[in-house]
């Protein structure tokens, strides 16, 4: 059974969160942006806490790359 939520879970904050992600990258070099993304992923992964959910998210994210 899937543990990963793919239905809408952002309440009314979807556009706010999207804008915050864009804003967070403003003015960063490519290298800095990659570091930011890595830090974000680690923080959010720790918050999720469940290894199976995280593995499923990784698999679904990779699938879109054709890998």
């Amino acid at each position, binding site marked *: 059974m899937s543990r990963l939520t*793919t239905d809408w879970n952002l309440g009314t904050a979807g556009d706010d969160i*999207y*804008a915050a992600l864009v804003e967070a*990258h403003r003015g960063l070099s490519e290298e800095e942006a990659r570091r930011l993304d890595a830090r974000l992923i680690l923080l959010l992964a720790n918050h999720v806490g469940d290894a199976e959910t995280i593995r499923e998210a990784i698999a679904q994210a990779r699938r879109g790359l054709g890998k």
Partner: protein
Amino acid sequence: MARYQYQPFDYVPPPELSDGKGRRHPVAIVGAGPVGLALAIDLALHDTPCVVLDDNNVVSVGSRAICWSKRTLEIFDRLGVGERMVAKGVTWKVGRLYHRDREVYSFDLLPEAGHKNPAFINLQQYYVEQYLVERAREFPRLIDLRFRNKVVAVAQDAAGVRAEVETPDGRYRVEADYLIACDGANSPIRRMMNVAFHSRIFEEQFLITDIEMKADFPSERWFWFDPSFHNGQSALLHKQPDDIYRIDLQLPADADPEHEKKPENVIPRIKAVVGDRPFEIDWTSLYRFQCGRIDRFVHDRIIFAGDSAHVVSPFGARGGNGGIQDADNLAWKLAAVLAGKAPPALLETYNEERVHGADENILNSSRSTNFMTPKTAFEQALRDEVLSLVGDHPFARRLVNSGRLSLPCSLAGFALQSDDDPELAGATAPGDACADAPVRDEAGRSGWLLDRLGTDFVLLTFGAAMPRQDLRQIVIAQAPVAGAATLIDTGGLAAQRYGAVEGAAYLIRPDQHVAARFARPTPGRISAALARACGRRG
């Protein structure tokens, strides 16, 4: 269907020039566009005379604003022109989004029944202006419409406003208690007063074209990200009355406007969208969008409304609709101040409430434009991956942003609104625009709640009457209530949409926003809320 026939309005020499006598007007409105005309009609409904000065003598050339929201139609209903607009307009509520050539998402802006007005109509601005002018002319005693009257200078002091007006017969002076600048995005009044406009300009250009074409496209808003027919850009198709279709095409930032506007360059782009059907170009315009506003909308006795005060990109239909809400918010306040029923400070609440509304519109339309025109590599990737996730991941659909369509903002927390009653939850709370619902009157006639609210303060009570001398009252109930005008809540939708309990009371402002609500009203609490809503607080 013949194309729109532009009928110039007659210029009438102003009486000041024939008899040489000055006249003082309570209100001078500069600009006879949708906002200025709506304001003039609303003032007339409040028995407040005005003079409307417009430098031109014809309605909007080209369709320009076309999407009119449910809230605007409710305001137009109050002004007496809503039904005519809806009858002529193309009603729609569904938007479809395509990525490349695949449909990825559709949304329904009004999925429930039991509302008089649709989510949106599309109606060319020239019809909206024509209908508003014709409605304004039904108030010959109160609305003095003056075409080809161009304001060339303006000055104010504590006593009033003076405007120098140029006409084909020469110059004269208009004096007024208040002057309302509804003179558009390039507002000459704003320039004369040196009021700074702070805006962000988007580099990308958009080619906006109206074509006349016979087609059986449904009444829906179709939006494409990266369609094969318009590579790497976005496109929007919208149906209007008279077999007119609006097509917006994003162009690269470095496109040459003069080159792109030439029919031989426009026609192949349109053909790529609509296929081989015959069509004729009705109107073309090339835009770089801006989002921004002036700091304050109220400058003592000179007040800005509509595009003169704020501009947005068109994705979300927040320009014209935002302007109509300005007029809706301002008219009753201006009338109350001029009649001595409220202190001049009430006008400051127009500033705070509509600056807030403008900021919400600017934020939403900027975000939509950002989504369409990513600026950085990360933004491009984020946008593209949202579009790539939508097929299998339902959450991503709601992140796709082709325009968050105009909704009235909440006025909660501003000076005129009382705090919500903790005993009432959700639904129509203080600050919200009133919800509509089907009702029946005591004679058994079916109708709509919003049509019954009128154009002044009204107390809406549920189940029981609470008669007052200073306030019209409507009781919503399942059966007629003795001693009060009752509306029968046929489907129980009114109580549901207001989150009301038996005995609750809602104080409704003249612009049909909720000022206060009480689960257990008392005459004292209602009096306090009414004083506060009129700007007579403390």
